[in-house]
């Protein structure tokens, strides 16, 4: 090989939001500091509506032992998963279609802007009124809230598709599956990752509202119950338990997946 050969430029930008992760001890230290501040605040200002960390922990253990928390957590998790999948598939299909068809995009863009700006609450209320207080309405309403965001992100992805790869695939007669798996998906991967990231955090917040308004189980329902009882420790126990679950999904599923699918990118020089 000749030494003067120049390296090729990176064909795609880094995936969105990618940055050097903080070392693990920094994360732990940061959480510990938050815990200390919380304990300090609760000690200086002792009131039933601001319980110290230990009490929240005990409540958590109690709810775990009774089986309530795992049950409601699982229900909420299933709703998050169902509406997430629904929103990603429908939103991606719409976004890719609009990104590839300029005319359709021009026509439907106002609709997209309209749906982007309808408050989540309105969609939930209407879904319950029109389709009844049932599971399908709940999940549908959450998905509907997220679909426009996914569509907008995936539309950007479809617009950024490099036609040269499609042409290469057509000259070399790639089959439909190969085109999808080796041409389309890798190019859309950063956009899918961005849409899922923002999607999952938005969705679980909306799921709580949906549960609070029209379901008789789930974390949102429980929080409403504890709100009426003014039981802040239980509210915090449920919230933190759910956040912990979402965080571990992010750390144990999303990030490893992303690392695997972006391992071809050149390491930062």
């Amino acid at each position, binding site marked *: *090989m*000749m030494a*003067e*050969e*120049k*390296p*090729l430029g*990176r*064909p*795609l930008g880094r995936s969105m939001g990618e940055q050097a992760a903080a070392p693990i001890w920094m994360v732990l230290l940061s959480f510990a500091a938050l815990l200390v501040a919380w304990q300090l605040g609760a000690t200086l200002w002792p009131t039933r509506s601001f319980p110290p960390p230990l009490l929240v922990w005990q409540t958590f253990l109690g709810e775990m032992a009774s089986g309530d928390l795992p049950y409601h957590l699982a229900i909420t998790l299933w709703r998050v998963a169902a509406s997430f999948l629904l929103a990603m598939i429908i939103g991606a299909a719409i976004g890719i279609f609009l990104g590839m068809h300029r005319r359709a995009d021009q026509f439907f863009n106002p609709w997209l802007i309209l749906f982007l700006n309808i408050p989540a609450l309105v969609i939930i209320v209407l879904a319950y009124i029109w389709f009844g207080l049932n599971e399908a309405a709940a999940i549908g309403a959450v998905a509907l809230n997220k679909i426009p965001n996914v569509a907008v992100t995936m539309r950007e992805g479809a617009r950024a598709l490099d036609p*040269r*790869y499609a*042409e*290469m695939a*057509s*000259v*070399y*007669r*790639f089959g439909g599956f*190969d085109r999808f798996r*080796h*041409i389309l998906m*890798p190019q859309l*991967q950063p956009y899918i990752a961005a849409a899922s990231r923002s999607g999952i955090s938005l969705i679980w917040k909306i799921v709580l509202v949906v549960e609070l308004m029209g379901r008789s189980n789930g974390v949102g329902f429980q929080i409403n119950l504890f709100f009426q009882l003014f039981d802040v420790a239980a509210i915090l126990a449920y919230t933190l338990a759910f956040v912990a679950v979402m965080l571990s999904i992010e750390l144990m599923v999303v990030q490893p997946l992303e690392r695997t*699918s972006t391992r*071809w*990118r*050149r390491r930062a020089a």
Partner: protein
Amino acid sequence: MNAHQHAGAAARLEVHVEQKSFSSATGERIDVLRDLHFDVPENRFACIFGPSGCGKTTILRILMGLDGDYGGSVRLPNWPDPRVGAVFQEPTLLPWRSVEQNIRLALPGHRKDANLDLLLEILGLDHLRSFYPGELSLGLARRVAIARALAIEPDVLLLDEPFVSLDQALAQQLRNLLLSVWSERPTTALMVTHDLDEAIMLSDRIIVLSPRPAKVVGVFDITVPRRERDEKARDDLRRSFRKQFLAPEPGS
């Protein structure tokens, strides 16, 4: 197995483009090709030689089936089911697949497990199989693109200035590599170039195009075998080519 079984007529490459134009954004039509007729005999290497911007790449895109909006007809070897080995101006490798995966993905179904050892060895790529294209230099990426085009055992090989923007020494090295792999299994080949020396070194036939709208000015057949094209033979060829098609070389 394929091209070799067919009679000469079936394995030649024929181009008859009456007219090809592009519309600009303002609605103006620009004729790119007009009355363009040429052919490449079976298993011969031909170069399209012409000024830059005359529509050479457009001809290749038509032959690759990427542009169907033209008047006329083209006939590739092994019609109507030609297997095309294409080398684009850019290597056009999938950055998210390794060198070997890039080549294997292009292989037709029944050859997916073909042995690539010999090809990769000749091209000096055997130790780079598991590298990603982003980790290769432009010269190496071009070699992979050439390997991909030849690995499919094409009925026709189409190359669009595959050695452009490489330094001369490296380009020359790649030309030699291309020739040695191509000679292992000759196919009908058409390469676009604006480098006369390159055309003289590689081709059996040079098809000379006019400026836009491009038509064939003339065909320059080279009968000297490639091995015998030394410095002097190439000089002679260059001189007679210039006498026929261009102004005499400055200073001669």
